[in-house]
Structure formats: structure tokens, C-alpha cells
């Protein structure tokens, strides 16, 4: 029995606000609880999402001073921005290709490493488990700017830690941040350092979620370790794979801070460190081509949604 039926029975004819409230608050309160979210969502997400769409067909000709009401002077350009981005703009294409290379590089390399590490950490009698959990999470919660600065030192040509380590192995050091060819490998190394351990914690959580009796039953039925792993463990890890791949790909296409810092607010030698969000930032906030930047934002959104959709579709196939 709920409270408002009790009060309703007491005084059915009362019209005071207090009474109405005590009778109906359970119906109204969820909207009040949701109000902060809905308000900020409407003002700071829905409206700007629409505005960005509108802006992506415009050219920003100038800015109106806040004292005169603010806003911008626009010129309608139709599909010009999109057409230019998709057919003429070589830098945009470079940024997308770099984003894709980084995405596939980090995701494909980190998955086996992270899964392997998780399997080790999940094995019985393994030591350093607590230490490993701590260490593997630390890069993820460290600011991208701090990570960028640390790796600026590590990737130095002559005095860098990485090249020093290579030379003790008898290998020639390379210009990680100065040679076009090695910029992407350097960034992937940085990405692996940041996300491998983090993802291994997700795999570990997934592994701990696999019911032991199921594995036990399969073993009693004569399945060997590899078969148990392939037919029981891996299917149970499906949601973790989905998570790791999708967040990895989205994160890669959103990369900004680390390359921005490594290449001194630039895009690296020959644009080798240029990423889509960086390009959006340069266009919108350094060249003030805000219509063009909005079009970049929308194309990027479409790409990210397509990737996510494709992934979900592929993983759904796997379930069958």
C-alpha cells in the first residue's frame, strides 16, 4: 500500500498545494529528479548538436561583439564544406588515415597482450597481483598532458630512454618524433602503454565472471585446456571484447592531447601526427573556419557511429 492512497482517503475534497503535493509527489518527483539532466542535456547537447549541423553548411564571415548581442555573421554555402572535405582536402584525408592506422594498430596489438596478461593474473599461485592491478591502472588515470611530456623525454633522438634501451640491445636508435616513418609507431607505443594494462583489467573482470563449474563440467566431459578456453572462456568474454574494441576505436579517433603535446601544438613532421580532432581544433580555433570545423565534427561523428554500428553487427554475428 502506498502513502498517497492513505492521504487521499483522509481528505478527498482538499485543494491546498501541500495536499496535492503529498498525493501526487510520487508521480511528479521522477521528472524533478531528471530535470538537471534534461535541462543541461537540452541546452548543452541537443542545441549545440543542432547548431553544429546548421553551421556545417555555412561559412563564418565574422564575429559580433557580445555587447551587440553576440553571435556570428554567416554565409550559406550549401554542401561546399562537405564536398571540399571529402574530395579536395588532403590534410583531412591524412588525419582520417592516421586515425585509422592508430586505431587498428593499438586495438589489434593490445587485445592479445591484454588478454594474455589477464589470463596470467587470473592463474592460481601468481604473485604481484595487487601490484599489477595498481600499475596497470595508473597510466589510464594519468593526464594525457603528463603522459605526453614523459614520452617527449623518452622519445628523444639522442638522449631518449627508448633509443638508449635500443642501443644496449645493439640496435640503432631512430627519430621517433622527427622521422615521419616512426611517428605512428611511437604513438602506438604510447597508446599501448596507456591502454594495455587498463584493458587487461577488463579482461580479468570478465575471466572472473566465467563460472568455474561450467569449466569443470567440460573438463569432466574430456575437454582439454585449449578447448575449454576456446568454447567456454572466450564466449563468456564476448562483452569485454565488444567493450575493448569499441572504446579503443572511438578513443583512437578522438585522440588529441598526446600528439598535440608531443609535436609542440603542431601536427608532426609531414602531418604524420595529425589526427581528426586536432584538425578540427586547428580549423575551428586557430583559423576560425568554424563552419568547416563543424563539418569535420559531423563527418567524424558519422565515422564513429558507422564503426560502432559495424562492430556491434559483427559481434552479434559471433553470438550465433
Amino acid at each position: 500500500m502506498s502513502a498517497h492512497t492513505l492521504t487521499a482517503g483522509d481528505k478527498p475534497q482538499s485543494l491546498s498545494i501541500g495536499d496535492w503535493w503529498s498525493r501526487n509527489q510520487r508521480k511528479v518527483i521522477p521528472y524533478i529528479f531528471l530535470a538537471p539532466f534534461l535541462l543541461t542535456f537540452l541546452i548543452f547537447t541537443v542545441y549545440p548538436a543542432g547548431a553544429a549541423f546548421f553551421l556545417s553548411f555555412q561559412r563564418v564571415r565574422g564575429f559580433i561583439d557580445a555587447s551587440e548581442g553576440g553571435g556570428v555573421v554567416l554565409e550559406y554555402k550549401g554542401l561546399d564544406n562537405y564536398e571540399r572535405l571529402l574530395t579536395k582536402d588532403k590534410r583531412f584525408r591524412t588525419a582520417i588515415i592516421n586515425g585509422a592506422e592508430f586505431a587498428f594498430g593499438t586495438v589489434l596489438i593490445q587485445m592479445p597482450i591484454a588478454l594474455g596478461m589477464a589470463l596470467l593474473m587470473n592463474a592460481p599461485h601468481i604473485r604481484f597481483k595487487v601490484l599489477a592491478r595498481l600499475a596497470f591502472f595508473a597510466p589510464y588515470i594519468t593526464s594525457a598532458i603528463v603522459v605526453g611530456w614523459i614520452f617527449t623525454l623518452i622519445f628523444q633522438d639522442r638522449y631518449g630512454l627508448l633509443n638508449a634501451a635500443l642501443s644496449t640491445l645493439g640496435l640503432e636508435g631512430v627519430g621517433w618524433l622527427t622521422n615521419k616513418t616512426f611517428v605512428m609507431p611511437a604513438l602506438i607505443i604510447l597508446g599501448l602503454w596507456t591502454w594495455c594494462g587498463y584493458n587487461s583489467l577488463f579482461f580479468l573482470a570478465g575471466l572472473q565472471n566465467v563460472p568455474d563449474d561450467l569449466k569443470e563440467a567440460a573438463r569432466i566431459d574430456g575437454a582439454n585446456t585449449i578447448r575449454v578456453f576456446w568454447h567456454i572462456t572466450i564466449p563468456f568474454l564476448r562483452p569485454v571484447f565488444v567493450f575493448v574494441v569499441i572504446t579503443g576505436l572511438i578513443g583512437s579517433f578522438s585522440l588529441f592531447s598526446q600528439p598535440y603535446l608531443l609535436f609542440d601544438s603542431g601536427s608532426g613532421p609531414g602531418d604524420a601526427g595529425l589526427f581528426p580532432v586536432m584538425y578540427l581544433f586547428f580549423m575551428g580555433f586557430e583559423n576560425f573556419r568554424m563552419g568547416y570545423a563543424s563539418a569535420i565534427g559531423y563527418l567524424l561523428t558519422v565515422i564513429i557511429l558507422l564503426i560502432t554500428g559495424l562492430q556491434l553487427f559483427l559481434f552479434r554475428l559471433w553470438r550465433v
Partner: protein
Amino acid sequence: MQLKTKRANTMGPGRVNLMFMNSVVLVGVLLTAIPFIYMITASFRQQGELYSLPVTIMPREWHGHNYVKLFGDTNFVIWYGNTIFTAGLRTVLGVYFAALAGAAFAKYSFRFKRFFFFLVLATLTLPFQVLLVPLFLMMRDFGWVDTYWAVIVPGIVGAFNIFLMRQYIESVPDELMDAARIDGASEFGIFHRIIIPLVRPALGVVAILTFVNTWNDFLWPLIVLHDDTKYLLSIGIATMDGPYDVEIGAIMAASFLSTLPILIVFVLMQRQIIAGLTQGAIRG
């Protein structure tokens, strides 16, 4: 009998195997830790040492002058204060609002509930970058550029936080809430005196994640904060080499000091944080 030996084989790895597995884990830990160690040791070195051979992880001589320079020549202390204030306020408000929304989804039935929840999920898929330009223009028209409102308010009620709070609040027993209603408690009273205390651990996790995200955020603050004394740590540290002409050692000192509180909180609460984060992912 045969069954038993088979089990022994799969359950416990041999001693050599175990040693190998342990060392692989240890190598992983070391590779992860070395950049951090290098950051700390670099902050205690003299500039010349970082640009000389041989390259070593440990300093040849320990120096404190990077820290002197950091506190004396830069606005580091101001940035630190700005960041604590901004991240703190955003966390308190954001977590409270997320808990309210989570409670609405977990414990009440209302019209358009499914639609509203779909909205929450939709914001998870929309990349923030697409909003940068119009949001900046809005901030300009609001007069929020170079104020912390611009950092605190947009996106304050995180969709992921609502999602997490909803999951935790679902475990609060309905009987408890109904009993309070019969005793005459208001819905806000129930939220504050029953729901909040029962989900306090989850609240802590969501708070820490929000705090860390705001603490580390770079792109958006870079767009809306232009005045050096208004900077947050991330922008301050990123641009330290410019106006102050400070050495990399001082930048490492700033990096170390700005990472320290986050790492300490994480060490203290790692179990809860990891559980909170991974919970959603393993269930799909």
C-alpha cells in the same frame, strides 16, 4: 584416478612454468612503471643531465631546484587551486544530479521513461568533439569564456554516471522506501536518508571518476580558458615551456605533483574503482 591427474595438470602450473608466468607479469609491471619512475627522477635532475650521455633512469645527483623554480617562477600553485576548486564543484554537483537521475530510472515509473533512458544512452554515443564549435560560441555569448562555469556546467550530468547510479540504486530494497513513505517521509527525504546512504560506495566511485576526468581534461578547458591565472593544471603544464621558459625538469616536477593526489586516491580505493568501472563491461 585418471581424472584426478588430469585435473592436477590443468589447475596448478609446474614450478618452472609458474616462475616464467610470474616474471612475465613482473616485466609488464616494470614496463608500465618505468615512465613514472623516469618522470620522478627527471624532476630531481639538473637540465644538463637529461641532455647528456649515458642515459640513466636514476639521477647522478639529486637536485631540488626544479621544484624551487616551479613554485617561484610559475603560477603552478594558482593552477592547482583552480583545478581543485573546479573539479571539486563539478564532482559534487555532477554526482548529486546523476544520483537523482539514476534514482528516477531505478525506482519510479513515469511516462516516457524508456524514451528518456534512450536519451541517456544516445549521449554516450555522441562524440563531444562535434559540439566544440557551437558550445564555444554559446560560452562566448553567455560571457562564460575565462570563467569556470564553462568548464563546470556543460556535460555536468554524465550519461555514464547516470547509468552506473541506476544500476546501484536498483539494489536498494523497495520495502525500505515504502516503509519510509508510510512513516510520512517525502520522496526527497527518501532519496537523502535511504538511497544515498545505501549507495555511498558507488557514489564514491562515480565521484572519483568524475573528479579524475575533470582534473585531466584538456581540450575543452584549452578552448574556453585563455587567461594564464585562470588556467587549470592540464593547460598550465602543457604550455609551461612557452611563457616561462622553464626547463623540462620543472615540467616533470609539475607533472609529478599534479599526478600524485590522483594516484594516492586510486591506491586507497583501487578495488572499488576497478569493480565499478568493469561492472558494466562484463555484463554487456
